[in-house]
């Protein structure tokens, strides 16, 4: 009776580890690709070659060329920098702000907690992307404003998690003991609360990378994010969508890039969640 359970646990543990290695490596490759994008492009991504417009995929141009004769592969690689960088920046912003606000609310309580949580309710009540559209629209587009808009609608989720985790920590005997040892509030939060609550928050942000990449590309596609000629996957797709029926590769290339990156980050997020789950680690 006991044996199989132990084995099942062990197999699960192993597969989680293997998945972690695979998706982790892929994600790191993506990051490397975006950091060194300038050196990885076979052609200058902004160089127009009018003799060679709308060329179908071939050995020389794997993803073909667009209507100005620019190499699509090079543009997709360069676009990875904007897309991946801005996504990571966005996720970092909402993780840090949301956590700070949540911990503060949970620790302080009283009226500040009530006010901030009501505000976060308001943000949570709107359908996310619609609200981001409105904010980005008011701020008049641009990559920076798209990030601000998405950050504005996304921090409450983190604030909620951080707040409830902080409240749970506050009730533990060890936190009472820590208070009795004469720690200042700052030290209690940084040394004792944050390390104990950061796990689930980081898992949430990993899972959010894929979503945020999509939403950022979505805003760009709608013309509220990165503006041409900046190579960004969402705006590249929107830019060329009129050519979808005649030269489909021009639209497909950035589409496939978004699809693959979102999938890698989602799978990595899932894996990290499984890995962080003590049950799957067989503790």
């Amino acid at each position, binding site marked *: 009776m006991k044996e199989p359970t132990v084995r099942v646990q062990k197999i699960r543990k192993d597969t989680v580890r293997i998945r972690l290695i695979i998706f982790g490596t892929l994600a790191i490759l993506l990051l490397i690709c975006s950091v060194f994008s300038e050196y990885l492009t076979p052609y200058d991504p902004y160089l127009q070659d009018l003799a060679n417009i709308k060329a179908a995929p071939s050995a020389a141009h794997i993803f073909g060329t667009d209507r100005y004769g620019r190499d699509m592969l090079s543009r997709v690689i360069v676009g990875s920098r904007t897309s991946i960088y801005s996504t990571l920046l966005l996720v970092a912003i909402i993780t840090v702000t949301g956590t700070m606000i949540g911990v503060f609310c949970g620790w302080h309580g009283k009226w500040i907690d009530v006010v901030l949580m009501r505000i976060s309710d308001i943000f949570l009540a709107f359908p996310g992307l619609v609200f981001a559209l409105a904010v980005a629209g008011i701020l008049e587009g641009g990559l920076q404003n798209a990030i601000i808009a998405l950050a504005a609608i996304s921090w409450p989720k983190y604030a909620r998690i951080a707040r409830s985790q902080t409240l749970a920590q506050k009730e533990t*005997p*060890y936190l009472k003991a820590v*208070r009795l040892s004469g720690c200042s509030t700052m030290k209690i939060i940084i040394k004792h609360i944050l390390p104990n609550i950061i796990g689930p928050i980081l898992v949430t942000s990993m899972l959010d990378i894929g979503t945020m990449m999509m939403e950022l590309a979505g805003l760009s596609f709608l013309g509220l994010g990165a503006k041409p000629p900046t190579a960004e996957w969402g705006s590249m797709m929107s830019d060329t969508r009129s050519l979808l029926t005649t030269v489909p590769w021009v639209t497909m290339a950035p589409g496939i890039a978004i699809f693959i990156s979102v999938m890698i980050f989602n799978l990595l997020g899932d894996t990290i969640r499984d890995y962080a789950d003590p049950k799957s680690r067989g503790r």
Partner: protein
Amino acid sequence: MEPILKVENLTKVFTRKGQPDFIAVNHISFEMNQGSCLGLIGESGSGKSTTVNMITRLLDPTEGKIILDGEDITNISGRKLRKVYARMQMVFQTPTDSFDPRCTLGDGIGESLRNNGWARKDTRDEVARLLEVCGLNADFASRYPHQVSGGQCQRAAIARALAIRPKLLICDEATSALDVTVQKEIIALLNELRWKSGSDLSILFICHDIALVQQFCNYVLVMYKGDVVERGEPDEVIRNPANAYTRRLIDSVL
């Protein structure tokens, strides 16, 4: 001599939305002399923990006054309150949960010293000494709470409470979560520490075992539903309990 702890009319009322107010502790008053050991007994839910949580100011009292060593600590906060914790420490019921799972026992024990300006190295030496005083090997300092048994963890918790050399030690059911033999060891340790300290250490000892209180304490308070229903010397209280609840409590044990 000034009493180490004086509590006057201490009251805690819990208010919750949609429910009637709940009086967990109802106007209790008592005094503790320096070097004495006061027992506080009563069934679960009688308000013992609430009382000591108010005394340590982990919980704000609804009403009443707490005077520690001549200083009124009822309304102080922040840095002043942190200073007070050098004179008053507590040992909790669940040993393992009373240490941060991500810090070593040594970090936990030395924390109050570090917060009071001790150097890292001095703290490390003192932690090793304290562990040995409490019957543990000095290398327990590098273990994590989940790597030691409940009894060992409670010894470490006592070491932590004594690190800053408090005048008042509060033990909130410090032995209830342990099995009987380990319970005896912990009691023996507390007894030893008490005799070693002369009259420098006063102990407020919470439990629901009247026999334990009899051998350990000079004075006992019996709590029932937030009230102190009986007080006196343990032998006296056991011999002729005035209160019906106390009588039942004694009958159930002896």
